[in-house]
């Protein structure tokens, strides 16, 4: 696994992005779906923040809301702030936002096969970033695009810049996506399951590349993933999400060694590990509740092994249980 991610533990943490009380809903025919409900998330300078949770828990919506690229309608950002460089991203004008996207904050996506435009060359799609954010002319921008392809270690970049996406393999395309995202040396990279669609060797290569570029550029990364193994190897801190909420937050050690929330516990138990017999492997029981039909009180109460009476009455508060370690659970002590 990649080892060139800079570990920041021991350094002073300065927040670079602070998301507070973010709520996002989708207004669909079947009703209003609260996809994100009061999320708090802080990303510090130079760190890798892992965001983990089951499918549909609102990871992508949170990330896209920060960049304001969720489709509205049906989506709407109902409340919250996202402070970045002393400005609330959620209040910027569309033109100001365009200056942030791809320039100060970039995002890469899960599906390299469909994330690039099939009708334009890869070089052209990278060059666009230089044209909009750096005001370069077409030619100069294209030459810079070739440089960026070289930087993400694509062989024969001059030729590849003139290729169309369908002429590239999945790994190559994800490299091209990274080239687009990092072209302007952003302060923050949001990587939404960047390796899920790739096979294992390519996954490691891509993660390595991201780690190396992070060190070069000195940016912070929000890494959204299902894969706790990936998180363990490269993240500094982790946020665990469930049903549109953050349920636990802490350093890698907090989460892996002394997690507090039963949902985190369940997630960790469902990951195969070498130091544990495989019969201990357990899925979290029950099904993910519908977002517009959550149980009363704690959203996880219907699936929780340690559910108590008050869990079904009142939603737990997100409270500190250690330095930088927070959990949204009524339990006083860890029962495991």
């Amino acid at each position, binding site marked *: 696994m990649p080892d060139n991610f800079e570990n920041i533990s021991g350094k002073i943490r300065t927040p670079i992005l602070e998301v507070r009380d973010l709520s996002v809903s989708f207004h669909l025919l079947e009703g209003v779906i609260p996809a994100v409900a009061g999320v708090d998330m802080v990303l510090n300078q130079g760190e890798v923040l892992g965001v983990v949770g089951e499918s549909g828990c609102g990871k992508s919506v949170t990330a*896209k809301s920060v*960049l304001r*690229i969720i489709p509205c*309608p049906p989506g709407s950002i109902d409340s919250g702030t996202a402070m970045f460089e002393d400005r609330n991203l959620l209040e910027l004008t*569309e033109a100001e936002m*365009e*200056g*942030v*996207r*791809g*320039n100060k904050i*970039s*995002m890469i*996506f899960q*599906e390299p096969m*469909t*994330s*690039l*435009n*099939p*009708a*334009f060359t890869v070089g052209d799609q990278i060059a*666009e*970033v230089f044209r*909009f*954010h750096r005001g370069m002319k077409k030619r100069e921008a294209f030459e810079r695009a070739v440089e960026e392809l070289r930087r993400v270690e694509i062989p024969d970049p001059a030729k590849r810049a003139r290729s*169309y996406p*369908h*002429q590239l393999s999945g790994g190559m395309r994800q490299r091209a*996506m990274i080239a*687009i*995202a990092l072209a302007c040396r952003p302060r923050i990279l949001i990587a939404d399951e960047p390796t899920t669609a790739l096979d294992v060797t390519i996954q490691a290569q891509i993660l390595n590349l991201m780690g190396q570029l992070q060190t070069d550029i000195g940016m912070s990364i929000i890494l959204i993933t299902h894969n706790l193994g990936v998180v363990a190897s490269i993240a500094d801190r982790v946020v665990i999400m469930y049903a549109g909420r953050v349920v636990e937050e802490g350093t890698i050690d907090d989460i892996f060694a002394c997690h507090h929330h039963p949902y985190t516990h369940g997630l960790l138990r469902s990951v195969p590990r070498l130091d544990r017999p495989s019969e201990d492997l357990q899925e979290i029981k029950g099904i993910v509740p519908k977002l517009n039909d959550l149980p009363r009180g704690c959203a996880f109460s219907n699936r929780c092994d340690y559910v108590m009476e008050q869990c079904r009455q009142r939603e737990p508060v997100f409270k500190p249980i250690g330095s930088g370690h927070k959990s949204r659970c009524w339990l006083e002590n860890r029962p495991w």
Partner: protein
Amino acid sequence: MLKYTIRRLLTIIPVLWLVSAMVFVLIHLVPGDPVLVILGAAAKPEQVEMMRQRLGLDQPIIIQYWDWMIALLQGDLGASILSDEPVTRLILERMPITISVAAVALFLSLAISLPAGIIAALRHNTYTDYFFMILVILAMSIPSFWLALLLMMLFSFQLNLLPVMGWISIFDNFWSGIQYLILPSVSLAFIMAAIVSRMTRSSMLEVLREDYIVTALAKGTPKRFIVFKHALKNAFAPVMTIIGFQIGFLLGGTVVIEDVYSIPGVGRLILGAIANRDYPVVQGCILMVTSIVVFVNAAVDVAYAYFDPRVSFDK
């Protein structure tokens, strides 16, 4: 792309050959002796024999085909039975008229339908969108000849703004020419505009949902650039295919419209030739119109490869 273009253009040759063979066979397989049809059942045997010789119908069919092919390759489509004029000249005289009506109709319909389709897609599920779609359904259900009559009644008889029927070429007198062009091309443009705008709208809607649009947003591309560069180029490929098909229908439509407005184009030539059993003229016209459709389709395919680069790398 160049290789693909050349390959695609080369396929025109066998298609054209096939088309010409089919036209020839069709005309010769149609039941009834053309000579008897021309001269009437009461014709004397000597007359019939003379006519046969004049038309070359006394030769074996293979020889007839061979002669016809050789002449065709030299641009000779035979002579009209009725007037003895060369068919090629008859067609070429009328072609510019038909093409100008069809071209203006095409231009009008695209000028309306492309912006309308794009706007409707961008305003998806708003009243603007609904309004456009209702118009489209209306426009598609009005037959063009009926619309032609309505327009004629309104603008020519009631308002006295435009000439009722007839033709003046824009090359002879531009402004009068335009006046004669307006009603026929508008009647033709209507249905095509409806079909193309519906296609543009649905194609745009589909493309705007694609992942690469989100990517473009995420890299800070301004909205208008996303619509007119990223979305439109992808959305246009299927629209163009529809336009290609519609050009065939457009040419068919001109036949009717030319008749309604008494425009001396290829359409009227065909109708007249059919009525008089002037089969060399019918043959020539059909061949001409089908060749145009074949060429248009090839052009559409080549353009498609520009809009969707994936098709030219099929291997």
